[in-house]
C-alpha cells in the first residue's frame, strides 16, 4: 500500500554492471539500465507500495529525476543507493567544502512511487542538462 513519500539518505558508488556498461559505452541502453536505478531496502519498497522494477521519482534539494526501483535485500533501512553516474549527479549540488570533492556519498532525498513516469535516456539527460530544463 502506498503511504506517500519516504525520506532516505542516498549514497552513490560503483557496481559491476555500471563498470561493464561504462567500458562498452555510455550512449548505450546497457549504461542506462546500469545507472538509472535506485536500490531500496524491503521496508522502503513496502512503504512506497511498489514492486521491483517500478519507476520512482527521487527528489533532492535541487531537482528530481525518475529512475527504476531495484530491491536490495541487504540494504539497511534509511539508506538507498544509486550507481555513480549522471542520474545521481543530476540531484547533486556542486558544493565541495573547498576541497574539490562534492558530497557523492550522502544525499538527503525524498522518494515517491511514480508508475508510468518516463525515465530519460542518457542522451535526453545530457540534453536536459544542456538546456537547463527541469
Amino acid at each position, binding site marked *: 500500500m502506498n503511504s506517500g513519500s519516504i525520506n532516505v539518505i542516498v549514497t552513490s558508488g560503483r557496481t559491476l554492471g555500471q563498470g561493464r556498461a561504462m567500458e562498452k559505452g555510455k550512449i548505450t541502453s546497457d549504461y542506462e539500465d546500469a545507472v538509472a536505478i535506485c536500490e531500496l531496502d524491503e521496508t522502503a519498497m513496502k512503504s512506497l507500495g511498489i514492486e521491483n522494477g517500478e519507476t520512482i521519482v527521487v527528489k533532492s534539494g535541487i531537482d528530481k529525476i525518475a529512475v527504476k526501483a531495484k530491491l536490495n535485500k541487504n540494504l539497511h533501512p534509511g539508506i538507498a543507493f544509486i550507481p555513480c553516474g549522471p542520474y545521481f549527479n543530476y540531484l*547533486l549540488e556542486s558544493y565541495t567544502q573547498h576541497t*574539490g570533492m562534492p558530497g*557523492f556519498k550522502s544525499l538527503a532525498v525524498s522518494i515517491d512511487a511514480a508508475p508510468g513516469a518516463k525515465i530519460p535516456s542518457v542522451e535526453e539527460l545530457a540534453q536536459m542538462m*544542456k538546456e537547463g530544463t527541469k
Partner: protein
Amino acid sequence: MTEANETFKDVPCTFCGCLCDDIIIEVEEGKIVKNTNGCPISKERFVGRMENRRLQPTVSGNTVTLEKAVERAVEIIASSKRLLIYGLSSTENDAQREAYRLAELTGSVVDNTTSVCHGPTILGAQESGEATASLAETRHRSDLVIYWGANPAAAHPRHIPHYIRQPGEYIKDPKEDRKIWLVDIRATTTSRMVDRFIRIEPGTDLEVLQTLRALIRGHKLDVSEVGGISIPELEEVATAMKTAKYGVLFFGLGLTQSRGRHRNIDAAIRLIQDLNAYTKWGLMPMRGHYNVSGANKTSTWVTGYPYAIDFARGYPRFQPGEYTAVDMLARGEADALLNIAADPVAHFPRSAVAHLAKIPVINIDPKINMTSQLAEVNIPAAIAGIECDGAATRMDGLPLYLRKVIEPPQGVIPDRDILRMMIKSLEKVMK
C-alpha cells in the same frame, strides 16, 4: 607487434588501479576476440573496444579532418582567458605530460580526476605523511587486510582474488593465515566475500577511526557505542589490529567522499602510524582509473603538485577548492574546457555540468561519451594500453609499461600526439 592472429601474454589491463598484468589477449583478423584472466570489466574494455566508438573528429556535429578539428581547438584555446584542462586519468603518462606543457604554454588550469576521487587522500597525506605498502608485500606478508569504504568486488574485481586471496611467501594458506575484513555503511558484494563485515553508521568514519586510535593507545571511553558499533566490539577490533603481524588498510571513496573528506584520511593515516608503534601496518588508496595514480605522479614531477594547478601567473600554483574542476565550473570561472580521457558530464554535479553547456568544450576520447554530447570539438583517440603503448602507475605506485596489441582505427592517433599537434599550432599562435 600488431600482426593478425596473434596472442599477447602478460598484457596489463587498463581499467582500474590494479593494472593486472597477467592478461592474455587473442587477436584474430584485426579484432580482439578473447581476453583470458581479465575481470568482466576488463573483458568488456578489450573485446568491446570498438563499441560506441568515435571514428572521425567533429566540429559542431559535422565530421571534419583531424587537422580541421585541431585548428578549431587551437582557436578556442587561444581565445580563452581561463582554460580548464581536465581528465587525464584514463590515459598514459606521456599524454599527461603533454597536457601540463599545454597548460604552462597557455597559462591555464590543469586538474585530473583525482579531485573527485582520492583528492582528499592526497590532502590527508600532505598533512600526516604516508605509511604505505606494495601489493606484492601485502600478498606475501599480510595476515590482516581491512577494506574501509571500498567495494572492490564492483570497482576492482580482481583485487581480492588476484592479490589478497593468494598465497605468499609467509602466508601459505590465504584463507586460514590471512583474514579479510570490511568496514562500510552498507552490505555489498564485497561484504559477502570477506571474513568479517563491520557496518558503521553513515558519516561516522572519522569518529570510528579516532575511537580506534584512542583504544589502541589504551584510553577508556565513557560512551557505549560509536558509529553504531559497541565499545567492546571496537576494543576487540583495536586489539586484533594491534596484534596482527602485518596489516594493510585499503580504503575507498567511502572515506574520501563522505563527511570529513581529507580529515577522514588524516585520521586513517594517524591510526596506521599509531599501530606502527606496536606492529607493522600500511595503508593504500583503492585508486579507480588505471592511471590516476600516474596522473598525480607525472603532475608532481612536472609541476611540483599532484592536481588542481593554475599556470595563470606563468608558474604553477596548487589550491584544491579553487583550481579543482568542479569548483572552477560551479563558479562559472572556466571559459573553455579541454577534456582528455574523462567524462565530466557523466560524473560532475548538476551546476558544474550546467556551466559546461555554456562554454566551448574540446573533448578527446576514444568513445562517444556524455561530454561528447555537449562538446563543440570531438576528437577520437587511440586507447592506451590496447592501441598504443605508454606507461601507467599501479595503485601502489609501481610503474608498468602498457602494450599495444592492435592497431587503432584508421586515422585515429594517441592522446599524446593530438596534444602535440595542438601545442605545435599554439606555439605559433601565441608568439
